[in-house]
């Protein structure tokens, strides 16, 4: 399975996503520069953490206008797997590919901490290898990760089983303990915790691998209708 890691000039978890996929998952992976209008021949893209264009405005507010996001939108519309982590999640939300918003943490401070969370559904290509009753440990590292949406949207997310992960330790004040959400088509997922930072014992946890293993399994069983080469 071929992964692409999008590199905005201020991405700083791009190396980490690349390492997790290339080294710890053993899959081919390449970087995709932010002004590229195509994604090339990849089966999934990762929007990594960081500060895409400095994020002095709202996080992700500028990134959504970048050339590569046009390609990401197209890719998502064609059913390709899109994973946004941390800043990547913020960008997907700003781009309208996922609902809701990520606002400043409840305590108004940046928090770097390992938290406990659970997969809230197995019905997605990002969580199908998970067990929903198992406690997962993954770190967060963000200042603006409090998931926020209006009540109607939150109800809808729950009704449609689109909450991918929920915090057990909710450090940032996210509504309904939401740590990750899916789009309606279930091929785009954003999460604030960093699965790529929990992919080998030396990192203190390997629980993040579940996200990547799920993607591999989903890809292996994907219907042939998903085009292998995209514009």
């Amino acid at each position: 399975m071929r992964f692409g890691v999008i590199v905005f000039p201020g991405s700083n978890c791009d190396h980490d996503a690349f390492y997790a996929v290339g080294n710890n998952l053993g899959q081919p992976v390449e970087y995709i520069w932010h002004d590229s209008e195509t994604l090339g021949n990849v089966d999934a893209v990762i929007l990594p953490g960081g500060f895409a264009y400095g994020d002095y405005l709202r996080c992700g507010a500028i990134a959504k206008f970048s050339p590569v996001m046009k390609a990401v939108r197209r890719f998502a519309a064609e059913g390709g797997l899109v994973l946004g982590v941390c800043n990547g999640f913020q960008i997907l939300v700003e781009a309208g590919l996922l609902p809701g918003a990520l606002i400043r943490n409840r305590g108004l401070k940046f928090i770097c901490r390992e938290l406990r969370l659970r997969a809230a559904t197995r019905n997605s290509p990002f969580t199908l290898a998970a067990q929903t009753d198992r406690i997962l440990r993954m770190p967060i590292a963000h200042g603006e990760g409090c998931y926020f949406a209006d009540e109607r949207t939150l109800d809808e997310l729950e009704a449609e089983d689109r909450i991918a992960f929920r915090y057990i330790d909710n450090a940032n004040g996210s509504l309904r303990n939401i740590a990750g959400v899916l789009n309606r088509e279930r091929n785009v997922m954003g999460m604030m915790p960093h699965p790529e930072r929990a992919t080998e014992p030396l990192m203190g946890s390997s629980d993040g691998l579940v996200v990547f293993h799920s993607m591999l399994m989903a890809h292996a069983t994907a219907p042939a209708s998903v085009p292998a080469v995209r514009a």
Partner: protein
Amino acid sequence: MTITPDLIAQHQLTENEYEKIVQILGREPSYTELGIFSVMWSEHCSYKSSRVHLKKLPTRGKLVVQGPGENAGIIDIGGGYVIAFKIESHNHPSFIEPFQGAATGVGGILRDIFTMGARPIAVLDSLRFGRLDDPVTGPRNRRILGGVVAGIAHYGNCFGVPTVGGECLFEPCYDGNPLVNVFALGVCKKEDVFYAKAAGVGNPVIYVGARTGRDGIHGASMASAEFTEESKQKRPNVQVGDPFMEKLLLEACLEAMATGAIVGIQDMGAAGLTCSTCEMGSRGEVGIEIELDRVPQRETGMTPYEIMLSESQERMLLVADKGREDEVFRVFKKWGLEAVEIGEVTGDGQLRVRQHGQIVAEIPNRELADEAPLYTRPYTVPPKIARSPALRAASVQTALPKLLSAPDICSKRYIWEQYDYQVRTNTLTRPEQTDAAIVRIKETGTSVAMSLDGNGRYCYLSPREGAQLAVAECCRNLSTCGAEPVAATNCLNFGNPERPEIMAQLVEAIEGMSDACRFFSTPITGGNVSLYNETLGEGIYPTPVIGIVGLMKTAAPVTIPFKNPGRSVILLGGPGTCEETRFGCTQYAKEVLRDLWGLPPALDLDREKRLQSAIREIVSEGLAESAHDLSDGGLAVALAECSFGPAEIGAQIELASDLRPEVLAFHEAPSRVLLSTANPIKVAAIAEKYGVEAPVVGITIEKEMEIRQRSVTLGTWEIAALKAAHEHALEAALEAHVR
């Protein structure tokens, strides 16, 4: 503009210094030239008061690739890779504008690292603040701490370097003079190291990065003077940082270096364009000529004086191979950065600055960069506090929770959780899990352990012994993790060197540090001196901070917390002893007796070295389940810290000693490590090999901790309560006053 005695004084130049300038130029300087000399000859840039003594420091070693004199020191770590590292202070700006002062401190040291071609992979910080609970100065001290921490977090987190450790201590003497010392470390291939040296007559001089504005003019001079009531008006002297720009600059510089078209490169930090041009010229023994009209400017109507002295952040100067400029320009364009040819390398050794074609400054590089006057300032002896001890009836039971929630000892979680300490996925432990921060190098299978240490209380009582103790503790922190200390960097924070008793502190601390670094074979490869840390005539405690790096094989580290009940607890080095004159510097004396007297703990260097060899071997052999060195708060505090793991495993210990109970529990004699093991016999055998005591003092138990002395219980505690006191004290001290 005519140069008047007033104008010379305003530039903090003495009459003699001015005469030397006239002599070098063979004429009166212009206003611009006066400004240029004043920043290059400031204490901050020239080390004129300290240089004579800094020469005493050991700087050579078999792993040293680059010692002092470059932007950072470089050490060979094997496997074809090197690390570049240095520590620097940003004390004065952080007092005036805490957020931006600290943020640009991080920015400055990061540039020093990637200027050498190394990608930064770790930052540590050593911080000192005034009392948080003081009714008068407390509010300001709390605001400074909040701003400094947020500033470091803002810059490091956005740039994408993990802030993995450090230290933070509090004393009234830092009320008007907080210390913000930032250490950074980077890694690169040995053949990819770059130097800040100009070469090749006719080669283009290229300016890259942010535009030049009027911010930070005279920052270096500000950092070379005491604070007065008017200092707040110097806020415009503090620069504003843009970590995103710095991140672009990092990536672009590393990519441009890889083209092979760059000859030399230096960042523009203190003294900006002035410093980068004349230092690169001087190192390469060439001249540099620039045209200021070509310098990208953020504001209109800037004078040559302003452009040359601006300390706008995120700028670099480089010399490229003539004919290959386009390769460099292409890379910077890709990253959206400005890169402009502003001049060329010449053969005449002069720094020649033009504006609109007219020469506005013409100064020989070598004299400007390297011939600042050196002062052998008079020094007497450091002040002594030879009062007799004031010990009185004491309770170990009540003192321990008090010490654990004291600002110096309590958990600094509030601070380090604001830092992304994991980005780049090389950080092998979170802060406070090990005595040193450990970052792996994926390319070599080697890990680098790092620690910063300094103890103003010890150094105030004896600068010489205090500096030695700092080096010993720093090396011990690395050894307790299993790492071999290999090299060091130092940041010397002192008061006004023109006062002989302060100068005495500086001299003795440097000599003490030299002796200890020589003894532990940790040469100093660079660093920084910050003098004039005084406000309204009140100086800080002498605060030399040492940063030492050690090497080890990459493996899951042995951490501080006890892991299992029923394990033997060994006090490697033994309970130690402490005369009462050496108890006045302890945290117990500070927090319980509210006093300070006598001398710092006695250090036996040879014993310390044997202890470190023993613990390194015990840890490397996989015999220790947990390990923690004894420092602030002594044995009782260390034992409590070992109990604060998620499982809350404590210990029951019994000591055979005739010391007073509070001295036994809280004295801070060095050369001791507390460890738990399932294999006490093998541990004892290793200890014996090095002639180190290794008494089994107790056993690990669940949920509780108890200390006994000759069968008399000195205290019993529930771990959960102690842990809560330790964990939340800092946050409580900072936030109790909000609302």
